[in-house]
């Protein structure tokens, strides 16, 4: 694995994504979700909302890095809020 040049933060990042996917799968098997319409303009499933949340989080980080001089943890906090917002009310 040395050639992949792992670092602790990226390993933690990918592990959390993997855990998230496993949790979503188990959750889906335990209680299958129904499509619903929230504040987003389209009907979404739980997985759709997770995808939208994660993609939005990535863009939030890029926006904070590119447009402001704020520290990165502010972007992470905003991303977590966005993720919670989309998953609950999206």
């Amino acid at each position, binding site marked *: 694995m040395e050639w992949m040049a792992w670092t602790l933060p990226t390993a933690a990042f990918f592990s959390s994504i993997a855990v998230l996917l496993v949790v979503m799968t188990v959750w889906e098997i335990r209680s299958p979700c129904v499509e619903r319409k929230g504040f987003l303009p389209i009907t979404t499933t739980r997985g759709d909302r997770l995808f939208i949340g994660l993609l939005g989080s990535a863009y939030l980080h*890029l926006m904070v*890095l590119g447009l402001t001089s704020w520290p*990165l943890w502010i972007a992470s906090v905003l991303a977590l809020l966005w993720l919670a917002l989309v998953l609950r009310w999206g």
Partner: protein
Amino acid sequence: MNKVPNNKAWWLVLPVFLLVAFSAIVPMMTVVNYSVQDIFDASTRFFVGADWYKQVLQDSRLHDSLLRQFIFSACVLLIEIPLGIAIALCMPTKGRWVSVCLIVLAIPLLIPWNVVGTIWQIFGRADIGLMGWALNALGFDYNYAANTMDAWVTVLVMDVWHWTSLVALLCYSGLRAIPDVYYQAARIDRATPWAVFRYIQLPKMKSVLLIAVLLRFMDSFMIYTEPFVLTGGGPGNATTFLSQTLTQMAVGQFDLGPAAAFSLVYFLIILLVSWLFYTAMTHADQNR
């Protein structure tokens, strides 16, 4: 009726998943790892956090090529999709001309990218190329190596020449799949040709058009070889698109960290735009 859910068929996806893991996921993880480090050689590397992302996002060279890339992809879609639909509508539906048309349309798709670039590079030259010579003989001051506008038009025409067939063939297959009863019903209602197109042919072509738009967007957004061979990115930087800037950074200057950071930004842009196209086109009739 009580439906028994059975998800065992998902195991059949496993071989594809493993293949994709090897060919895409593992390399992408490596790129993510590169993007947060300053790498000197196999054993010397330093963690730099999000510095490369910051540098890349504020780099005006990349802003310029991103802008050019969006303009190029927009032009490609605006020209090739309507043109492809029009060609598909004009194609014969039976007889020997069907195979002639299909073969003629398929020829550009069979030519490798670098050969297409070379063909157009020679075709556009004022001294030995047919198009360049003819345009200059007609009094146009055409020189794709020196004039920005000429270079852009040549790259665009080359892409249209190379890929409109793909859109046309996809649309043609979509059109052929429409049962004749729809047309019969339209004739009974005395529908105009426009109404037939708008309410029968276009909705029935939606799924193939979705594939065509996605393929053409992704391909044109990642275009590298053809403009590289044709203009080399010039004149100046006028036709240097994203992938060429990225290659210069990664292979030319060997700046692996910034190049990795930028390729992830690139990936996120493609992911977002493709997802938007897909969602817009698949949800369009649900909300009507």
